[in-house]
């Protein structure tokens, strides 16, 4: 297996007495489109800011593409980042932003940038402050992409966009990934935003990593069981209950099990990715250990 694009060990960030990120351990393999999902305030932005070197961690260690975040120009060149709300210079025109990118990045691909701006139908002479939310996000993405990074990190890139702009943004992103062999980490508080694009998922709840792994593995290993109400102690070994709900005589369980469930007393159903994430989000926050799906 190739070296992980992002490897974190016991990563924590504390603001005064508040823990924004606690004991985060992750190993994200290369070449994935990673969805970082969690409710607002879960620590997604903190984790991404640590990964791009905007924030120093309070404890733990992190390596991004084998280097220390923002440790130098070479490291900065390898990582593209679009911060939340896609900051741009309001007083500079679209063309000025491309000039900015060209001057600030030795690896800049002007043709790629021009092509994207052309395809998006942006007027190069327009002041960036007058762009719509979607155009602004696209401009910010263009700046991040045209420096040709190995890893693209996007913090809530589509949260403020309308559905059409969301689709266009994700299409643009996927087109880039298809052409260039880049890894992507993008965050959202809604898994439905990312379902279509990501093949790796990290769920962050209340400053902790709750689950992470390949989407396929997660879907294979999680099941919804419906059956007569009974004691949960008699579940097959190796089965972990993520969420349970009971009505009168019936129980519905969301479980994680690496082996197939052949208990006849349950109806076993596949989970959608959204159901799976919701199960983790609604889980009691006392759950001690994060689930780390590792590819065998």
């Amino acid at each position, binding site marked *: 297996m190739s070296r992980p694009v992002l490897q974190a060990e016991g990563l924590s960030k504390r603001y005064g007495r508040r823990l924004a990120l606690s004991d985060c351990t992750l190993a994200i393999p290369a070449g994935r489109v990673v969805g970082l999902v969690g409710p607002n305030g879960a620590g997604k932005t903190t984790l991404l800011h640590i990964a791009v070197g905007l924030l120093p961690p309070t404890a733990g260690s992190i390596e991004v593409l084998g280097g220390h975040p923002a440790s130098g*120009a070479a490291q*900065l060149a390898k990582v*593209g980042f679009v*911060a939340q709300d896609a*900051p*741009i*210079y309001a007083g500079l025109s679209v063309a000025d932003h491309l*000039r900015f990118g060209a*001057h600030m990045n*030795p690896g800049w691909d002007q043709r790629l940038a021009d092509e994207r701006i052309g395809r998006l139908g942006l007027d190069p002479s327009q002041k960036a402050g007058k762009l719509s939310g979607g155009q602004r996000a696209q401009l910010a993405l263009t700046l991040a992409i045209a420096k040709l990074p190995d890893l693209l990190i996007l913090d809530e890139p589509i949260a403020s966009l309308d559905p059409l702009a969301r689709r266009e943004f994700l299409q643009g992103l996927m087109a880039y990934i298809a052409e260039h062999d880049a890894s992507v980490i993008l965050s959202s508080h809604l898994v439905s935003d990312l379902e279509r694009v990501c093949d790796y998922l990290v769920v962050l709840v209340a400053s902790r990593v709750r689950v992470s792994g390949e989407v396929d593995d997660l879907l294979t290993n999680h099941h919804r069981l419906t059956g007569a109400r009974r004691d949960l102690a008699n579940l097959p070994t190796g089965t972990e209950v993520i969420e349970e709900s009971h009505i009168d005589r019936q129980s519905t369980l969301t479980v994680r099990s690496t082996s197939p469930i052949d208990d006849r007393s349950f109806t076993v159903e596949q989970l959608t990715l959204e159901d799976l994430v919701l199960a983790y989000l609604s889980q009691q926050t006392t759950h001690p250990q994060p689930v780390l799906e590792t590819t065998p």
Partner: protein
Amino acid sequence: MIWLTWRQFRTQTWITVGALAALGVVLVVTGPSIADAYDAANVAACGTDCGAAISNFLNQVRTGAAGIVYQLASAVVYVVPAVIGVFWGAPLIARELETGTHRLAWNQTVTRTRWLATKLAVIGAGTALAVGLLSWAVTSWAYHLDDAHGGRILPLTFSTRGIVPVGYALFAFVLGVTMGMLIRRTVAAMAATLAVYSLAVISMQEWIREHLVAASHVTNPLDISSPELLMIGDNDEMTVIGSHSLSDAWVLSNQTITHTGQVFTGPADPQYCGPEAAVRACDQWVNSLGLRQDLVYHPADHFWPLQLAETGIFIAIALLLAGFCFWWTRRHLT
């Protein structure tokens, strides 16, 4: 990075160039009238009766435009460093932090250190160049007028001539950057910059400058023919301040002392200085006391040593602040 700094600073640069050019035109236009008045009053060859020649010269200048320009130019040089601190320094980083664009800038292939270094170096150089030119132009334009007004060593004139304005401006600029970095709000940083800058410059002018170079000290017999002050208070307490003939000097203290070196405080003798005494009897009595005049002052030739010391201090503070900015940007700025 130089491109970005230039692009973000283009408007200010053109405004500055325009303002400097406009001022330059005003100075070039009014300059000859000063030279004419100077020649007409024959100040250069005044010999023994310079007082009359100088007041003649000043009267001629005051009736023309140059008189107003003289006041205005000094005011401009006095205010420009503060303006640079408030409008160039304070927003430089604060505006990026406020709008979040530092997150964009810091994720290009340029380290934060280089990002800050370029901004400080380019705009700092611009500041030094613009204020240096301004101060040079005003200092040379006002040369004869400053001499006629008591010399460049006098506190307010001193602050607007020579190289100190450059020191003030560099200090104000870096102070603004620091305030913006710490406060992270443009308007609040501007206000804080103005407050701290004013405090620093006024403290320098009022309390610190006179100690930068050892002042000259002279004791002469008191000449009471035209005293600056002769006052008799309660209990015959008496204050006598003699006039002095130090021209082009910044007098720090002028005291009348007795032959033992104490400051003379009376008591006045009512026989000579009382209400019934004869005219001038008091003067004669004071003269008979053998009082001396004790002067502490900076002569005109302390101008450059004082300029160098004061400019050096402000540039040193600016460098310290810049060092702090680098440290803060690397360690604490997010």
